[in-house]
């Protein structure tokens, strides 16, 4: 079981801010593929990988990072703080 969080327009497209998911995906990329195959709203949220960022347990990570041991995955657009 893994917690998945969505922020900004990713959250708006998916329709929920967070959810708990049962997955055996070995990497972020595999998880994205799994999610995108679920429903159109996920497909739309994950359509443009280049405009997505991911954090694993609250640290920025790459899409090829392994998910082993990870408890929280977050997807969001490039940050616009400051």
């Amino acid at each position, binding site marked *: 079981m893994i917690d998945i*969080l969505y*922020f900004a327009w990713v959250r708006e497209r998916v329709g929920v801010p967070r959810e708990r998911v049962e997955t055996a995906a070995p990497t972020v990329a595999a998880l994205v593929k799994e999610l995108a195959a679920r429903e159109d709203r996920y497909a739309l949220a994950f359509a443009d990988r280049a405009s997505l960022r991911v*954090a694993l347990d*609250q640290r920025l990570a790459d899409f090829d990072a392994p998910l082993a041991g990870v408890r929280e995955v977050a997807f*969001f*657009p*490039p940050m*616009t*703080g*400051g």
Partner: protein
Amino acid sequence: MRVAVQSAPFDLGAEAARFAAAVPGAGAVVTFTGLVRDNGGALAAMEIEHYPGMTETAISAMVDEAARRWALVDALVIHRFGRLAAGEAIMMVATAATHRAAAFDAAEFLMDYLKSRAPFWKKEIGASGTEWVAARDADEAALKRW
């Protein structure tokens, strides 16, 4: 070193004064304050979303890195989330160092990192609808100088 992530407004004058009053040995204090631009009246408000937990951790790491690189006497970051009206202060950074170059560089470094590496997302709320603020290539490019 203090990091505050909050929805409440802050008083930049009081924060700047308090910060500068407690930096023994420092000769230079720099502050940066980001304000909600009204874009010529087109923008009514700004909604800032953040990632609780990660935000504080990420900013604290940036502050620690800046303090180490520039031997800062002190540093402060305040960043708001939630709904802000045009003209309101979004965030502020303050740095204190022995000389001005370090204080300026550290403040610019923190701003560059906050812009592109702190998990905040801004949505502009205008008369004609709402829109997520897109990340600027210039902001990403600015990181390369550090």
